[in-house]
């Protein structure tokens, strides 16, 4: 297996002063689902924005490091060119075009798609995953429920037929049952369409359940990574990210800290 995305030593600065990513590295293998986990403010969204080229839109900049996608450097490309290369990000917070209908939102998803016949076929595929969207086809996206909006933004991404799909907290604000459904569909997309997936989540349990590999980040760096079964077996991951207590032992942040040390020794 080969990595289609390689991020090396990425450093990101906002407003020329706030250093948010401090030498972050990660790899995404072709055809895999990779989870990027971490607490609030760790820099997960920033990582995705750096890959998609969104940082300049928020007064952020990549000051060091490289982002290689299929051997090509992405760091200097503008966002629409990165989409054309096959990297599609589903942003945090369900950014549907509220004033546009469901249909028009889907057309926007297929914007880089040249063939109309292919778009229509892909739309049918979306309706197979999310039948409710077909019923809402002519409705303004702003009036959809939160769950339906999440389905719509995933469908938009499907219509772009990306090589790498990045999702930023698809579970945010959704009921548990719906979260489960959405994650199941993400898994199916990976399996049926062969789309490689980079998944940012707060909900570590759900994310790890469908992933092959996981990265855990703190404070702008990766502190721990490994295949999912290894991560799931790790006591600190269980304790801090999966919420399993270990009874008599004292929970302490130091336990996590030593991974940083280990990581540094290794690299």
């Amino acid at each position, binding site marked *: 297996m080969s990595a289609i995305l390689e991020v090396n030593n990425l450093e990101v600065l906002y407003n020329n002063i706030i250093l948010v990513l401090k030498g972050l590295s990660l790899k995404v293998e072709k055809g895999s689902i990779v989870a990027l986990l971490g607490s609030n403010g760790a820099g997960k969204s920033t990582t995705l924005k750096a890959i998609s080229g969104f940082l300049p839109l928020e007064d952020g900049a990549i000051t060091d490091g490289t982002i290689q996608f299929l051997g090509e450097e992405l760091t200097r490309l503008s966002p629409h060119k990165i*989409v054309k290369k096959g990297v*599609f990000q*589903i*942003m945090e917070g369900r*950014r549907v*075009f509220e004033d546009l209908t469901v249909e028009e939102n889907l*057309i*926007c998803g297929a*914007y880089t798609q040249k063939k109309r016949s292919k778009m229509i076929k892909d739309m049918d595929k979306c309706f197979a995953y999310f039948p409710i969207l077909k019923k809402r086809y002519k409705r303004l996206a*702003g009036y959809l429920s939160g769950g339906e909006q999440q389905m719509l933004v995933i469908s938009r991404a499907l219509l772009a037929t990306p090589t790498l799909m990045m999702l930023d907290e698809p579970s945010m604000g959704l009921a548990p049952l719906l979260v489960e459904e959405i994650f199941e569909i993400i898994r199916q997309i990976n399996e049926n369409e062969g789309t490689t997936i980079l998944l940012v989540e707060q909900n570590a349990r759900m994310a790890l359940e469908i992933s092959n590999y996981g990265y855990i980040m703190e404070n702008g760096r990766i502190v721990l990574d490994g295949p999912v079964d290894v991560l799931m077996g790790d006591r600190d991951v269980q304790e801090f990210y999966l919420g399993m207590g270990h009874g008599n032992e004292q929970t302490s942040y130091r336990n996590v800290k030593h991974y940083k040390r280990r990581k540094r020794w290794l690299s």
Partner: protein
Amino acid sequence: MDIFLQLISSGFLVGGIYALIALGFVLIYKATNIINFATGEFMMIGAYIFYSLMVYLELSPFVGFPLVIVCAALLGALVERLILRHMLGQPNISIIMVTIGLSSILLGLAEMIWGSSFRSFPPLFPRKPIILGEIVLRSNLFYGFVMAMVVVAVFLIVFKYAKVGVAMRATANDQVAAFSMGINVKTMFTISWAFGAIAASLGGIIIGNIGGVQPTLGHIGLKIFPIVILGGLDSIIGAVIGGFIVGIVENLAGGYLDPYFYGGVKDLAPFIVLLFILFIKPYGLFGTKEIERL
């Protein structure tokens, strides 16, 4: 009664032409949030270019119109690329000042090239007035209206159904999300300036054909302003309906009230209607409020 019908119907025709010019404002505002105070001058330049093609180069109108469309698109796109692109992220008031500056520059250029004297177009349409029962419609007004409506309809269709139209509306709705779809947002800005300039310049030709061309032809742009606000600045349908309302109100006020004053009611009336409507609907008739789900 027949005076009333007469005033209403010619007001309606004028309103259709206003609608086209208002569209010139709205197309730009919707995508870029910039109020282009040079819209009137875009009209005037369009009219002069058309005049030159007709009179100096003696081209047929069927060649003249497409050429004006091309020139206007270039003018709009260049203004965006060379001037407004560099103003991205600047305070709104600075950007407005830039468009006002632009209007003075275009006005000055027009005087340099064409002088300040009044010129009229060679006849474009059949002279015969259109007579519908008791109503008599001036031919230039009538055909100008028809032309304006055709152009407005084309813009509406493009905006509603064409891929570029959907992308422009997406950009207007959420720029970052538009980028994430692979839409080149900056290109959308350029295209909306080109579209806005095309709408304005065709409106300029129609107005010039009715009343002649001089550098101050663009001052009518100020009259269009209440229309745009009335319709809700970012609404295309609003611009069209606002255009009709102002055209009709203005004509009725002019016909019935102006005889009792020294004139001027005609120009004042649209603003009174504007104030009244904004009092009831602060976002204009069709302006966007954020969608709020309860």
